[in-house]
């Protein structure tokens, strides 16, 4: 049996293939950097303070908005403290999304995918009532929607909830008229942006003596609405639409290749195939459905798909390192069960992240205002899962580096016995070592680029300024680039690590004379899987 395509490919062909893939990668970066806008966009909206004159306050058909026919009666809270006929239940903060621009009423498009709301408060300092640093605020939040063509007052209830949030304020200059410096609070997350207009009504109820008693004098409320940019979605989906058939095609080719062999597929090939399937799931452009249907679970689903992909990638690396190191005890096929100890770290990490995600984004499917970080139990639970995931990631990487180190030790140790072997066998084993090193190099480069890109992105965002007039969208380039990179990486793995077909032309004259010498050298290798031949080499040299 011959090795994989990688070993049997001539240097020239390999160079052509690799430079082609690199060109694709550069294109992914450039598409992200030059064509796509930044991934997300935000609009900060100042709440209009409306006065609710109705007697019954929990009427969910009554909506307060500040633009269009039937807009609400506004109150100025700076003067309001003097008017005595106003009660706290009369105050409604209204936020109408999105804001108009250039004199036109703009609306959300379904291309914009999701909507995240962040709440900020302007709390005025009063010497007569100092706000404690940490206080809890109770919010009665109602979200309504409307579509194009609806009359101005045709708001329909989307969701409502009574929520608690931590208000974390401090102040440097304690003089009347100054504001506290309050941290932003996450308010809601909509997994689908199905409707055209949204309206948020916020009340601060005072029903018990302690409720909202220590929040100070709220002067203004700001909501920042973050949505994905339509242009980014378009570029992203186009990338997926291109990648998906490519990966499916190469996967089918890979599987056919394996089935053409006389033997059963080995573990490594199965893992590679599983990885390909995980990538297919990630690449599947199901986001197109959101343009037609209301699918709030999309945010959760994309998290799960991403998690599934990374889990299979991590497992693949482990098995790959392991398969190049294990000294085979039996002639049986290696199975995943052998790696249960190593893979349990991956599994634990994934499960804890999954549970955390279900607790946050899963519950947000039912109540978009839900946040796990509000209650003490929820915070502890979330932290537990995140720490668990962190520990298992650390363990995983320890395992992996240990295994890789062991493989390298094995290789360098056993290499000394190489010159004693016949040239054909030696070339073959060197091929296997080369194969391992090739993957190591490619993986390290990809991982390093991901990490460096991520860190650069954090630094670039940290120094975010108003006046940055850069045309290159770094964040988008990072996203499309990294996404393209892993796609190309797995594409290359599937191509290069597929079994070579060059075992058939035993004595035939191939037109490709250039490869002839290489082919012939591998023709007389024993009919074993390449993995077992490597392990047998190790056992053999150990016996020697």
């Amino acid at each position, binding site marked *: 049996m011959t090795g994989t395509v990688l070993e049997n490919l001539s240097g020239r062909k390999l160079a052509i293939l690799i430079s082609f893939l690199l060109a694709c990668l550069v294109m992914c970066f450039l598409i992200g950097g030059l064509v796509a806008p930044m991934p997300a966009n935000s609009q900060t909206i100042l709440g209009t303070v409306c006065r609710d004159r109705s007697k019954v306050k929990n009427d969910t058909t009554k909506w307060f908005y500040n633009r269009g026919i039937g807009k609400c009666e506004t109150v100025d809270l700076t003067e309001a403290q003097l008017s005595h006929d106003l009660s706290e239940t009369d105050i409604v903060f209204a936020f109408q999304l999105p804001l108009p621009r250039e004199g036109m009423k703009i609306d959300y498009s379904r291309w*914009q995918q999701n909507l995240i709301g962040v709440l900020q408060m302007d709390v005025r300092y009063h010497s007569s009532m100092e706000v404690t640093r940490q206080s809890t605020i109770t919010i009665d939040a109602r979200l309504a929607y409307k579509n194009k063509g609806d009359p101005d007052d045709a708001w329909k209830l989307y969701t409502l909830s009574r929520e608690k949030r931590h208000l974390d304020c401090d102040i440097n200059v304690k003089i009347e008229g100054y504001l506290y410096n309050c941290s932003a609070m996450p308010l809601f997350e909509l997994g689908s942006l199905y409707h055209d207009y949204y309206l948020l009504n916020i009340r601060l109820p005072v029903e018990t003596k302690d409720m909202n008693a220590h929040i100070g004098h709220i002067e203004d409320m700001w909501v920042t609405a973050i*949505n994905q940019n339509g*242009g980014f979605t378009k570029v992203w989906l186009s990338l997926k639409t291109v990648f998906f058939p490519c990966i499916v095609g190469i996967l089918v080719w890979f599987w056919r290749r394996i089935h053409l062999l006389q033997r059963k597929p080995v573990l490594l090939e199965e893992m590679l195939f599983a990885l390909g399937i995980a990538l297919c799931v990630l690449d599947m452009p199901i986001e197109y459905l959101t343009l037609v249907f209301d699918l709030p679970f999309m945010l959760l689903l994309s998290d799960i798909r991403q998690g599934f992909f990374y889990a299979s990638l991590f497992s693949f690396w482990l098995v790959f390192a392991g398969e190049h190191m294990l000294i085979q005890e039996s002639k049986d096929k290696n199975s995943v069960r052998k790696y249960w100890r190593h893979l349990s770290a991956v599994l634990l990490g994934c499960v804890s992240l999954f549970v955390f995600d279900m607790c*946050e984004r899963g519950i947000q499917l039912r109540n978009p205002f839900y946040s796990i970080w509000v209650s003490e139990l929820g915070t502890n639970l979330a932290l537990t899962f995140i720490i668990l995931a962190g520990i298992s990631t650390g363990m995983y990487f320890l395992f992996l580096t240990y295994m890789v180190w062991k493989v390298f030790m094995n290789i360098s140790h056993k290499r000394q016995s190489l010159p004693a072997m016949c040239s054909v066998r030696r070339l073959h084993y060197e091929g296997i070592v080369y194969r391992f090193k090739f993957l190591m190099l490619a993986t390290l480069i990809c991982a390093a680029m991901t990490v460096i890109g991520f860190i650069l992105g*954090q630094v670039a965002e940290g120094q975010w300024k108003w006046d940055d007039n850069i045309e290159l969208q770094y964040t988008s380039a990072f996203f499309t680039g990294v996404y393209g990179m892993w796609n190309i990486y797995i594409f290359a793995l599937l191509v290069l690590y597929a079994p070579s077909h060059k075992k058939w032309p035993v004595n035939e004259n191939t037109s490709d004379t250039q490869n002839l010498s290489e082919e012939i050298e591998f023709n007389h290798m024993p009919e074993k899987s390449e993995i077992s031949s490597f392990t047998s080499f190790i056992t053999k040299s150990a016996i020697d």
Partner: protein
Amino acid sequence: MGLLEFEKWSNQPGLFSEKSRFCARLRGLTPGQRRICRHHKDHMPTVSAGVRKGIEECQYQFQGRRWNCTITSDETVFGPLTLIASRETAFTHAITAAGVSLSISRACRDGSLASCGCSRASRPRHLHNDWVWGGCGDNLEYGYKFTESFVDVREREGKVKRGSREQGRQLMNRHNNEAGRRAVIKKSRVTCKCHGVSGSCSLITCWQQLATFREIGDYLHEKYEGATEVKVSRRGKLRVGNPNYSLPTPQDLVYLEESPNYCIKNETLGSFGTTGRNCNRTSPGIDGCAIMCCGRGYNTKRAVIKERCDCKFHWCCRVDCNICVKTVEIHTCK
């Protein structure tokens, strides 16, 4: 700056209709400002509110000083002060420009100004497509741009001789207006939110949070204290008067002439004098009677005042206070 009286009108119906000619009726606007006013009628109440806030902030910052940002009721607003190119003039320009800029940005954010811009470019041809593709820019920028065109147009109109005093004034005003507008941006805070995979920080979106006007006022007051004296060169550029001083940045205030001491009323210098002003007898500082009254002495009057004290504030709209009666001595400059 005839914008102050605008507030009186802003309740009239049909004010912003096409036919309304209120821009022509506003006093104190230059022809260029009238033109912008006609194009952006709905901006005018906001501009007016911004100017008022600027003046209020100016009076807060300079309370207890000889010059206390007194305004006159005529269209010049700051009265004869604007005749001289002093530090105080510099401050008034900066603070009103900042007020207008902040007001416009705020109005954009509460949706009351529908015509706020979308991107850096002038109006995009397919606004809706642009908004879906890449979103709209920040309103902070719109406030800056509008203020730049509306307030600075005043200083660009009218031919002046290069290197003349008038040209110096124009340059100085423009520089100080710019400093005011920049203060709004400088004091705004960046807030970020992570919203990547599972809420991680693989994706961060940041936005500008507007500062309060008090913070901007404090900042500009600092700039007032460190203002640089400049001269206008023959080539029509501003130059630092004393070559030992460092060059003023666009954030710094500049002035051309030394301030008067504001002790005695002098209309041509923009000084209202300190006669009749209250002062603090025990303070050794600038609000103390010795400095405030410029050595002329003061009158003392005893008065009984009632004021609210021990206030307890309840969200949203209730303040429980006691009434305290105090006897105080009021000192006024002779």
